[in-house]
């Protein structure tokens, strides 16, 4: 299936039919909510403090509901009237704004304690009109976003980059606007669960958060590495053997799939009594 942003501009693509999916399709809702929760986690807001947050490309307000649940007040921006109508129907608490992210973020300086965006940024890379220049639009968006945030705020933007050049283009414009930070890639070993979060910071330098499903720093001794190599030289383990099962489970874990922990019973044969 082709990417949605190649089919039509966002204000036309998200028509009533497409917007309806965000209330009826439970799988779509689940994914949106999960990504929003992860984005809020990456925002690293001060604990138990109600904040004022900005939701960029809020759409039907699914991500806003996540913010509400955590006690925050939010303001949402979206370009699609149909999606905002769904948000109206869902009776979200946040205020909504019909506006184009590429035209800037129309708020006073230092307003928000944080900003999130779920699956919206890739739309800015398109030139849907003759007058659109993606680089200029991205720069205007990031520079006005930078101004509207407080100096301790973060912006976490989840998006689906088409290729590495696109991710680079977006990051470069964000850095040019004064942000620093970078990409956090959750579940990098899985094609399906892989998620890109652009974590942007305005204030002091803090270490980037750890991505999920990524191996932590190697703490073991170097010789195990050699042993692994020797093992690999012997070829793949025999099908259905304990090693084969362990390897398969490890692979699933890296992809972020639910996997039972290993135990002494893993891959053990049943006794003949059965």
């Amino acid at each position: 299936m082709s990417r949605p942003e190649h089919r039509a501009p966002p204000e036309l693509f998200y028509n009533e039919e497409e917007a309806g999916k965000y209330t009826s399709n439970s799988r779509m809702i689940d994914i949106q909510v999960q990504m929003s929760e992860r984005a809020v986690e990456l925002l690293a807001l001060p604990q138990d403090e109600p904040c004022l947050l900005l939701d960029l490309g809020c759409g039907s307000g699914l991500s806003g509901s996540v913010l509400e649940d955590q006690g925050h007040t939010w303001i949402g921006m979206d370009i699609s009237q149909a999606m905002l109508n769904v948000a109206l129907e869902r009776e979200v608490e946040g205020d909504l704004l019909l506006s184009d992210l590429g035209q800037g973020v129309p708020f006073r300086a230092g307003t928000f304690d944080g900003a999130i965006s779920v699956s919206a940024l890739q739309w800015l890379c398109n030139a849907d009109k003759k007058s659109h220049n993606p680089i200029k639009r991205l720069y205007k968006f990031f520079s006005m976003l930078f101004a509207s945030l407080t100096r301790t705020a973060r912006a976490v933007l989840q998006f689906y980059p088409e290729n590495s050049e696109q991710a680079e283009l977006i990051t470069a414009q964000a850095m040019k606007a004064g942000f620093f930070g970078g990409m956090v890639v959750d579940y990098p070993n899985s094609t399906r669960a892989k998620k890109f979060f652009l974590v942007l910071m305005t204030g002091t330098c803090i270490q980037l958060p750890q991505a999920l499903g990524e191996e932590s720093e190697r703490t073991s001794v170097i010789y195990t590495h050699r042993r692994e190599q020797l093992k690999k030289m012997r070829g793949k383990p025999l099908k259905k053997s304990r090693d084969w099962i362990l390897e398969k489970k490890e692979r699933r874990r890296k992809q972020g799939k639910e996997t039972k922990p290993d135990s002494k019973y893993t891959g053990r044969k049943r006794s003949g009594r059965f």
Partner: protein
Amino acid sequence: MVFRCAVHNMKLLTHNMLTSKCMKGVTVGYPLGIVAKDIKVSETEFNSEFVSRIIPKLDWNALWKAADSIGHSGDLPQQLMEDYENNEEFLKKVHHVLLEVEIINGELVCPESGRKFPISQGIPNMLLNEDEL
């Protein structure tokens, strides 16, 4: 066609943060004027911590003028009082004006260019035309 009766409104908190500085030739674009056709007063949960945290961020003058222009300033003082954190009565008044007085239909007016941004169903339309960028 089913008529959906969903009511959503723009709070004065949003108005206090909103500018029209995205437009070409507009430098400050603040505060936006309000032409309100429908106003609703609702009741929302009072959170004193949130209100006292948001007050330093507010442009008090703009808030008072906005509330006054739509006739809902009530007995809100024109000047921000000191030591408001512990004055629950005052915080409740601010809460009322910020989060409970809402605009359903009307217009926002850019103070510099006079450009009007329509508000329908509580959603201000901030989309600009190509020649305004």
